[in-house]
C-alpha cells in the first residue's frame, strides 16, 4: 500500500533521507523510530507529497505521489507532528473544511462530525474558536479530521503527543480497529512502548538511512540485547553509550 523506491532528499550538502526503500502492506501498522533529527518528519513529508524528493519515487495505493498527487492524496490522511489548525475557525468549521476539501458527502458530514467531536470529548467546545484549544484538543481535532474522510493510508507523526491517558487509549484502539479494517498506518513515534504494542513491523532510521527493519522478534535477533523494544532500540542506535556519560555526572 505504501511503496518507496530509492527515496532521497538532500538539502544542500545535508542528506535528510538517503535511498529509502519501503514496502508496507494493507492493514499493517509500521513504526518508524529514530533519534531526533534522524529524518522521520522529512520522510513523512516525502511520502505524503508535501516535499519533492531529490531522487526516488513513492507510491500510495499504486498511485505515484509526484505524478498523480490527487489520486494519492485522496486515499491518504496526515496527522502532522504539530497540530496547527486555523486559529480563527471553530472546531466544527475545521472539520467541515476538511470534509469539503476531500469532497465528503454533506449529509454524511452532518451526521459524522458531531459523532467525532463527541468521541474525542470536545463536542462542548466544537463551536468555539480553535485558538482557545489546548495542544491536546487540537491534536484530537486533527485526528477527527483524518477519520472524517476515511483514508486507506494514514501517516501519523507523533500522534500521541499532548493526549491525556484516556484519549491516548482511545486513539490506540482506533488505530488497531482501522488496521483490522485494512487501513495502512505509518507511524513516527518516540514512545517505544506504543510502537511495541501497536506496530506489526518497525523501521529504525539513523541519519536518513533505515539501518534496521523487521518485526520486534527480528530486531531482537539482530541486536546484542534482548528484552523490550527500548533495549533493542538503544542497543541498535548506540544509545546505551549514554550510560557512561550519566555515570560521569554522579
Amino acid at each position, binding site marked *: 500500500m505504501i511503496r518507496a523506491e530509492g527515496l532521497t532528499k538532500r538539502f544542500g550538502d545535508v542528506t535528510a533521507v538517503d535511498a529509502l526503500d519501503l514496502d508496507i502492506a494493507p492493514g499493517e501498522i509500521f513504526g518508524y523510530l529514530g533519534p531526533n533529527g534522524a529524518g522521520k518528519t522529512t520522510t513523512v513529508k516525502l511520502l*505524503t507529497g508535501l516535499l519533492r524528493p531529490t531522487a526516488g519515487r513513492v507510491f500510495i495505493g499504486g498511485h505515484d505521489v509526484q505524478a498523480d498527487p490527487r*489520486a494519492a492524496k485522496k486515499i491518504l490522511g496526515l496527522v*502532522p507532528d504539530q497540530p496547527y489548525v486555523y486559529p*480563527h475557525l471553530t472546531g466544527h*468549521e475545521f472539520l467541515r*473544511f476538511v470534509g469539503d476539501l476531500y469532497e465528503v458527502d454533506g449529509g454524511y458530514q452532518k451526521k459524522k462530525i458531531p459523532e467525532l467531536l463527541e468521541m474525542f470529548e470536545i463536542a462542548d467546545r466544537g*463551536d*468555539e474558536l480553535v485558538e482557545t484549544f489546548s495542544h491536546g484538543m487540537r491534536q484530537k481535532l486533527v485526528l477527527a*479530521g483524518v477519520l472524517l474522510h476515511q483514508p486507506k493510508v494514514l501517516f501519523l507523526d507523533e500522534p500521541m503527543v499532548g493526549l491525556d491517558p484516556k484519549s491516548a487509549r482511545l486513539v490506540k484502539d482506533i488505530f488497531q480497529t482501522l488496521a483490522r479494517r485494512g487501513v495502512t498506518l505509518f507511524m513516527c513515534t518516540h514512545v517505544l512502548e506504543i510502537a511495541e504494542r501497536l506496530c506489526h513491523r518497525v523501521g529504525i532510521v539513523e541519519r536518513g538511512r533505515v539501518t534496521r527493519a523487521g518485526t520486534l522478534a527480528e530486531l531482537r535477533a539482530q541486536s546484542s540485547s534482548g528484552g523490550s523494544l527500548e533495549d533493542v532500540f538503544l542497543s541498535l542506535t548506540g544509545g546505551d553509550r549514554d550510560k557512561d556519560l550519566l555515570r560521569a555526572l554522579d
Partner: protein
Amino acid sequence: MEAAAFAALGILFFVFLHWGALRFLRAVHGVELAGPLLLVKILSMALLTAFFMILFSATITSFTTLFFARDLALLVHTPLPHRTLFAFKSLETAVFSSWMMVLALLPFLAAYGRVTGQGAGFYLLLAVLGMPFAWLASAGGIGLSLGLMRVFPARRVRDIMLAVAMGICTGLFLWVRWLAPAKFLRADTMSATLEYIALLEAPSSPWLPSTWYAQAVAAFLNGSAREAVFYGAALVFAAALAFALLVAAGERSYYAGWVAAQECDRRKKRRPLGAEWRGVPGFFGTRFRAILGKDLAVFFRDPNQWSQLLMLASVAAVYLLSIHKLPLDSRFLKGLVSFLNIGMTGFVLASVALRFVFPAVSLEGRSWWALRSAPLSLWEILWSKFLGGVAPIAVLGVVLVGVSNHFLGVDPFVTRLSNLTVLVMAVTLAGMGVGFGALFPRFGVENVAQIQTSAGGVLFMVTGLLYVALTLALEAVLMRMHYFSAVVGRSLWSGPVVAAVLAVMALLNLLAFFLPLVWGHRHLSRADV
C-alpha cells in the same frame, strides 16, 4: 538570477520615482513668488501623511510585537526587566512600522534636495531629524495599544481596534482636507496674492511633529540656522520625552497587558458554520467554496486584517472628495485629470492587492499542511486565492473610477476606456498579487503587516506600479488621438497604431498575470512546508 532581476527592477522603480518627483518639484519651484513656499507646503503634506501612516502601522504592529509575539513567552520569564524588554520591543516595533515609509520617501526627498540645490548637510539633517520623527509617530501608536490593552480585556481590545482605526482614519481625512491641496493649485481663487502667500506661510499645525520637521528643513533652506535648530531641538526633545514617558508607562502596565493578552475568552461561542461560509456561491464547487468560505471567515474574525478596510475606505473617500473639489474649467485640464484618474485608480488597486491579495498564501500560515496534504493541486489553491481576491478589487476599481468619472463629467469614450482598463488591471493585479505571494511566502509570521512590508511585498508593489505606469503610457497614445481628434474636428485615429497598442497591452497583461503565478507555483512546489 531571479533576485538580481528583482533588485534591478526595484532600483529602476526608485530611479523612475525620483525622476517623476524631480520633474514635479522643479515645476512647482518654478512658480513665480510662491514656488519656494509651495515646496515647503508639499514637504509638510508628505511628512504629515507619513506621520499618520507610521502611527497607524505602529498601532497594528505593536499589538503583535508587544503582546502576541511567540518569543515573548520565553523573554518575559527571563531575568530581563520588563521595562527593558518593553523598550527593546518598542524600538523593534518602530523599525517594523516605519522602514517602508522611509524607503518610499527617499526618492522624493532626494529630488527635493536636488531641486533646492542642497549638499550633504541637507541629507544629514533629514537623516538626523528623520529618526526622532519616525520614533514619535511609532511611539504614538505603541502608546495607544498599551493604553487600550491596559483598559480593556484582551479579547475586547482587538474589537476596539475598529474605533481606533476609525479615529485615526478620520483624523487623517480631516487633516488632509483641512490642508485643502486643491487650493494650492489655483492662486487665482484667492482674492489677492498676499492672501495666498499668507496661507502658504502659515504652518500646518504648530503641535505636529511633521510641521517641526518641515519647518526645520525650510529654515535650513532659508539659511536661518537658529530657527532650524529650534525646530530640530523640538523634534529631538519631544522624541526623548516620548521615550521616557512610554518606558515609564510600560513599566507600570506592560506586564499586566501581556498577561491579559494570554487569556482567551472561552465563552464566546459561534454558530456552527459562520455566515461567511454560506455566503460563497455554490457554483464555485465544493473545494473552492471551502477555501473561499474559510478565507472569508478568517478575514472577518482577524482584526489585523479587517481593520485595514477602514484605512482603505478613508483613502478612497479622500481621493474621491479631492476629485470632486478639483477646479477644472478647461477641457484640456478635465481630459488630463480623467486620464491620470485611471493611473490613480490603478495605484489604489495595487495598494489594495498588496494588503488583501498578496498575503493570501502566507496567511495559510502553519496550517498550510492541511491544504497541501488534501487532494487538490497547487494550481487549484492558487486559483482559489485569485478568485477570492479579484472580485473585491474589481468592484472597488469600478466604483472608484465610475464615481470619479461622474464628478469629472468625462465623455463616453473615456468612461468606456477607463472602465475596461480598471477591470483588466483588477484581474492582472490580483493574479500578480497571488503569484508574488506564492513566490515570497512567509508562513511563519504572526502579523499580516509583516507580510505586506516584507521584501516580497515591496517588490510586488514596485512591479504593480510599474505595470500601472506602462498601462497608462500605452493608453496615453489612445487618449491623445481621442482628444486631438476633438480639437481639430476630424478623426486622427490610426488603425495600425490602435492595433499595436492593443497588442502590446495584451502582451503586457498576459506576462504580468502569468509570470508571477508560474514562478510562485514553481517556488511553492519545491518549498519545504
